[in-house]
């Protein structure tokens, strides 16, 4: 049989089933040749010699992640006289397998069919068999007595194959990790979104805190999307997990720059999560950990036409914290619900609702203070329509609400309504059009009670008026397979923003390319312009400055990389990048991150009384044994606690109103051997430099870290035991002049080690359970975030150790 060798490989790799062409018989006996010449030949006396098309190359199709069970998809392929598949159509819709099979079949190549030696177009039928690589984790090495001859090799190998073959990402996309791999990375708690922190180009603000600089762009310039729906944040408060149950996530992509035209309105980077396609079988997952519990279940209905999914997570951190610190309250939960129904062969209607809640509070003798409370909710109703074999179109309407509560009854609320249309359409054999348009309206209701704020903070609060913002966008790009070894994707997106009576237009051209240099080497490049309205420093729901004051932020992003398949499930990607920023509202980088000041006994002359921290503004040269002769000193009566104008207020206000330009350039290296291998791991290294120019001065960005290194190794210890270790190291933050240590230009570097140990039990063919012990920062290292100077001298300001031990149970079916 044509695919016998593939079947052998399938058993070895446990991948998907392989295609079995029923076609020869079908093509000869059933499917009529399309060419007129073939019809004519049927009328001749001598029976024609019909040679069916022969598949060339490897027709392996990845098993859809998140799907369950075996499936066989019967395809009808139309193959032209050159052996190119013109169309592929599943006889019966059987999602997600039929779509995956149709897409894959379009890339198949055949030796042309012939009739009496003449090439002819034919229509054949082909069966693609899918076999699941479940469970995703490797079982114990099979004992000889129990090993069935046809039993596949370790399932982890299957996952590897799926990823390798399935990976054909955008050139601008930083390496993507599957959830099976993420599960093996210590310190991520199995959370795909947590894997962002190990990606090259990503610089943490503080270890454990889910806010990142991406290639020099601050957290407020990084957009978060889930299935194309914008979400305000991805992580629960503090060092919490992501706001979406990991069992729902298919993959998480990080676009560090030059991203596809589909993504815009953010000038720093895009984190895009995609949910798993609908499963055709009942499946579920659960986990119980020291600080939260979650579950997810998915089930088909109406004979497979419909599908419903429910998931969520609840934290009982508050109860635990009560034992440790009776004054602190930390609480969070999230939920997800999805219903989908196939209206016909080509039409699907689905609704996806999800949301999250977070609360950080402090108990006092008489009340509970809200330090920080956020929540968001989204409902996304979608209609998907297939355009034959050539493409698909999605029309969706999104409703949502974001809300943040702060102290003293202050709150921000954003009610949003949006609609979008997304089209993917194949234009011939070499071009695929990807286009879309969307409109989003955000109604902001904001109450910051500015009356009791200091003048500077009141100015900041005034930047957040209640109003209605509107954003309209259109985009298109063309994926051009100019040659088998050369892809080019030109694109453009146009966005019109209106806010509080102001409007601005952003036009973002994009260009990506991929050149194959041999069978194992690819050259990837991405170039793009990105516009974004003024943003707040970190993603906080509703904290969106109004009025477009200062105009749009702009970033020119460019990168060039080489990706090499080293074999043995090992790949390495080396990338150089450069970003140029204009009109950035990056308050974090223009605010001195550490307090600098005066040597012992000196007095910070520019300190304003009432500043609780008694902190000088950061210029050591202003230190004096006493306040300078000839100047009026401050009134410090009563010390701090007064809501007057403080040094910190002044700094914050100045930084918030400052527009900066800047640049970031660097080198990224990502070496990975599949973490699901018996011995897997990765090394992620970033060497970079980020600067800002503001107020006629150019300086190193406040959160610039020269070296960022993440390295992990995961072992299969046998008998379903897996262990992993991960090390993190990065350079300390830039240090402002310190009179007590003039030679130091940076704070101390930081490193930590995370560990993970898992034991899994395969209860039967379907059910599995595992116990997982994980510990973030077993080295108990503290991290320097600044220098605190007082009249008694300077001391390094450290946080932590942020160390999180976790023991939990996970399971699924």
């Amino acid at each position, binding site marked *: 049989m044509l695919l016998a060798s593939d079947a052998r490989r399938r058993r070895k790799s446990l991948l998907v089933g392989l295609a079995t062409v029923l076609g020869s018989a079908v093509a000869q006996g059933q499917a009529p040749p399309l060419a007129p010449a073939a019809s004519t030949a049927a009328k001749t006396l001598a029976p024609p010699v019909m040679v069916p098309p022969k598949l060339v190359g490897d027709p392996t199709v990845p098993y859809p992640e998140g799907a369950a069970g075996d499936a066989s998809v019967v395809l009808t392929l139309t193959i032209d006289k050159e052996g190119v598949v013109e169309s592929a159509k599943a006889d019966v819709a059987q999602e997600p397998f039929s779509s995956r099979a149709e897409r894959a079949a379009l890339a198949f190549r055949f030796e042309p069919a012939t009739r009496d030696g003449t090439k002819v177009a034919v229509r054949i039928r082909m069966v693609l068999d899918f076999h699941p690589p479940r469970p995703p984790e490797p079982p114990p090495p099979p004992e000889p007595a129990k090993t069935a001859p046809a039993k596949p090799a370790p399932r982890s190998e299957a996952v590897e194959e799926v990823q390798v073959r399935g990976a054909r990402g955008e050139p601008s996309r930083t390496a993507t990790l599957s959830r099976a791999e993420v599960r093996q990375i210590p310190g991520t708690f199995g959370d795909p979104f947590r894997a962002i922190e190990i990606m090259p180009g990503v610089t943490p603000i503080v270890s454990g805190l889910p806010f990142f600089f991406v290639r020099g762009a601050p957290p407020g310039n990084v957009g978060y999307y889930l299935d194309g729906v914008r979400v305000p944040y991805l992580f629960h408060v503090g060092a919490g997990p992501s706001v979406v149950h990991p069992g729902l996530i298919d993959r998480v992509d990080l676009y560090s720059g030059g991203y596809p035209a589909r993504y815009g309105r953010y000038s720093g980077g895009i984190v895009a999560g995609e949910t798993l396609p609908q499963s055709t079988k009942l499946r579920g997952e659960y986990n119980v950990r020291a600080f939260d519990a979650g579950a997810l279940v998915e089930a088909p209905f109406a004979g497979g036409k419909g599908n419903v999914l429910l998931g969520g997570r609840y934290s009982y951190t508050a109860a635990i914290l009560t034992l440790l610190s009776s004054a602190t309250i930390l609480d969070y939960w999230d939920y997800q619900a999805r219903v989908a129904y196939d209206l016909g062969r080509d039409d699907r209607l689905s609704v996806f609702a999800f949301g999250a809640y977070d609360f950080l509070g402090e108990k006092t003798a008489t009340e509970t203070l809200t330090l920080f409370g956020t929540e968001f909710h989204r409902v996304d109703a979608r209609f998907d329509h297939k355009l034959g074999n050539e493409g698909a179109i999605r029309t969706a309407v999104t409703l949502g609400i974001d809300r943040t509560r702060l102290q003293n009854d202050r709150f921000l609320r954003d009610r949003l309504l949006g609609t979008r249309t997304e089209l993917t359409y194949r234009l011939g054999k070499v071009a695929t059009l990807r286009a879309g348009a969307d409109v989003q309206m955000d109604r902001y209701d904001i109450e910051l009670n500015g009356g*009791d704020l200091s*003048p500077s903070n009141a100015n900041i609060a005034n930047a957040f008026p209640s109003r209605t913002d509107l954003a309209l966008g259109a985009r298109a790009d063309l994926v051009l397979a100019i040659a088998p070894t050369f892809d080019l994707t030109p694109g453009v997106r146009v966005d019109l923003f209106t806010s509080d009576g102001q409007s601005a237009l952003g036009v973002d051209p994009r260009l990506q390319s991929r050149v194959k240099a041999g069978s194992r080497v690819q050259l990837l490049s991405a170039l793009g312009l990105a516009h974004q309205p003024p943003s707040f420093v*970190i993603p906080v729901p509703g*904290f969106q400055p109004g009025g477009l004051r200062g105009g749009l932020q702009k970033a020119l992003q460019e990168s060039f990389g080489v990706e090499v398949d080293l074999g043995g499930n090992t790949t390495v990607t080396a990338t150089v990048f450069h970003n140029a920023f204009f009109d950035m509202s990056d308050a974090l980088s223009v605010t001195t991150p550490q307090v600098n000041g005066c040597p012992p006994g000196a007095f910070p002359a520019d300190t304003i009384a009432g500043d609780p921290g008694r902190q000088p503004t950061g210029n050591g040269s202003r230190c004096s044994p006493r306040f300078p002769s000839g100047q009026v*000193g401050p009134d410090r009566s009563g010390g701090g*606690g007064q809501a007057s104008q403080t040094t910190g207020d002044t700094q914050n206000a100045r930084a918030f109103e400052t527009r900066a330009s800047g640049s970031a350039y660097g080198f990224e290296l990502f070496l990975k051997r599949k973490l699901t291998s018996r011995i897997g791991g990765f090394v992620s290294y970033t060497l970079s430099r980020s600067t800002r120019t503001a107020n006629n001065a150019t300086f190193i960005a406040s959160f610039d870290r020269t070296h960022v290194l993440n390295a992990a190794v995961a072992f299969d210890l046998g008998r379903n035991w897996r262990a992993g270790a991960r090390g993190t190291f990065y350079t300390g933050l830039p240090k402002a002049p310190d009179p007590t240590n003039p030679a130091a230009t940076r704070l101390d570097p930081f490193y930590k080690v995370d560990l993970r140990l898992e034991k899994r039990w395969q209860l039967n063919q379907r059910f599995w359970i595992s116990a997982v012990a994980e510990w973030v920062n077993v080295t108990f290292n503290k991290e320097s975030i600044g220098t605190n100077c007082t009249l008694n001298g300077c001391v390094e300001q450290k946080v932590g150790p942020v160390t999180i031990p976790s023991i939990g149970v996970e399971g699924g079916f």
Partner: protein
Amino acid sequence: MRSMKRTFGAATVLALAVACGGGGSSAPAAVPTCDAACQDAIAIRALRETLKLAFNLTLQGKPVGRHDETVACPLGGSVHVVGEATSNPAQGATNVDLVYELQGCTYTLKDDDPKQTYSMSLVGNVEQKGVIAVQPTSTTALGFRSGSVSFKGSVYNPSIAYEQAACAVVLQQDGNKLSGTLCGRTGTVDL
């Protein structure tokens, strides 16, 4: 987890900056009442802290000598500060002889301590004479005097309406202790 909280706080510094004006918002349970003397004491505090704010926003850091400065108050109104300020760097002290013209200057403070919570609008002229110390080598010794100051606003939490028609105020500050008379009624406040 406490350190985690601190870490989170570090990153959300600006987010919370706009909320750093004081304490909580919910209605406190079983709050004791604030009598007339308590209310006067809060009013005295409001006057002193308003003058302190005006001083720090106008004169602090300026060259010694005679000054004539006006600054807007956070909730409306303004303060006109006129007079002379000299310094003694050796002792870390500033000698002041100033007049504050309060023109409906409104200032608010919220605090966990209801006795340090107020919102007050002030009208009138207040003289300030003495020494403002900024280092332990010296002690603040200030006198405040006014023939006519009016108060209107609220004090305490939950708030109590407070209004005092124009009257005389005489206060003396020694260190952080402030005492004197408000409209003939005595009052003492620890700043």
